[in-house]
């Protein structure tokens, strides 16, 4: 669950093919926020990288996404049912995907709730440019 009102959530098998489904979902919600397409593309890339990070960790069988939105913020939480301890691992925090998600989004945190697998949460604020 995200902190913002959840617009969409979904669960898919933890395989690369299904990451495409997740990123299109996020892009769809970003478009409803009226984000310019360069920012939508950054959301899409961030989902892809965050998902690939989770796919690398703890032999996950499924990936969950939950996308929350406000008038001008998108909040994405990706989690897996993989077993990793500790989370976030040093390896994850110094990985290329982590660096990329950090660069593409406004805020990134790695979390784990009791009994859940690892999750990555990031927010992307709509920048309206000159409008």
């Amino acid at each position, binding site marked *: 669950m995200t902190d913002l009102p959840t617009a969409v959530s979904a669960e898919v098998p933890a395989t690369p093919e299904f990451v495409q489904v997740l990123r299109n979902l996020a892009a769809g919600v970003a478009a409803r926020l009226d984000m310019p397409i360069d920012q939508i593309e950054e959301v899409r*890339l961030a989902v892809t990288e965050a998902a*690939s990070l989770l*796919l690398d960790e703890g032999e996950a069988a499924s990936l969950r996404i939950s996308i929350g939105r406000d008038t001008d913020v998108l909040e994405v939480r990706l989690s897996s049912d993989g077993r990793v301890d500790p989370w976030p691992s040093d390896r994850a925090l110094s990985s290329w995907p982590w660096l990329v998600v950090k660069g593409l989004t406004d805020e990134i945190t790695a979390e784990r709730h009791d009994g859940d697998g690892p999750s990555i949460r990031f927010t992307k604020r709509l920048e309206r440019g000159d409008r």
Partner: protein
Amino acid sequence: MSRSTKPSRPEEEIAELFARLPDPAAREELAKEFLPLAEYFARRFSGRGEPVDDLTQTASLGLLNAIDRFDPKREVPFSTYAAATIVGELKRHFRDRGWALRVPRNIQETAILVNRTVSTMWQDLGRAPTVAEIAKVADIGEDDVLQALDALQAYTTDSLDAPAGDATTTAAESIGGEDRSFEVSEEWLSIAPALRDLPERERKILYLRFFEGRTQTEIADELGISQMHVSRLVSQSLEKLRDNAGEV
């Protein structure tokens, strides 16, 4: 209710009325005579969320336009000519309200259209357009735009996004003269070894974007290329890195 859409008067009388144009009385007579035709098409376009009264009004406007523009010397019967004009007016009505009465296109065609629209709009607006803006200009649905944008990412977009003349410029040249001898640090290569295989310009863009935390606009200014180009090179090179790593 099946009402006839045919005029009640004989053809000769209709022709006479056309001959009297632009006499307002004759115009009104003709409009009354062919109103059932306008009503017929208004009903055909109903059930799409627009009140039928609005549609009838729009169809009637189409009919009046048809009366004013019709050339009786042509071989086409007036009702055929009017039908086309009325349908055109109704379609425009829906389009203006963001409703799509779309001719289906294949994805590739749409992708090319969207790609072209994005380039023009990005240049005109000085920023990236939104999906809704692209949909409006390209006259397609927002979902089609999203699908096309996704399809465009699937290409290796070199051929699509390389601006004219780019091929004659080497990557090093286009990076710009006042380059503070760019060297990729070992630290950063150790994080993503596949970076070694990227062309220098893409490597530099990723470095500036993700190690130095620069914005796309800053990078565009520094490299002297458009922000759109930076955005696409970022996507493209991240894609390449994943391909090389055998991931997603």
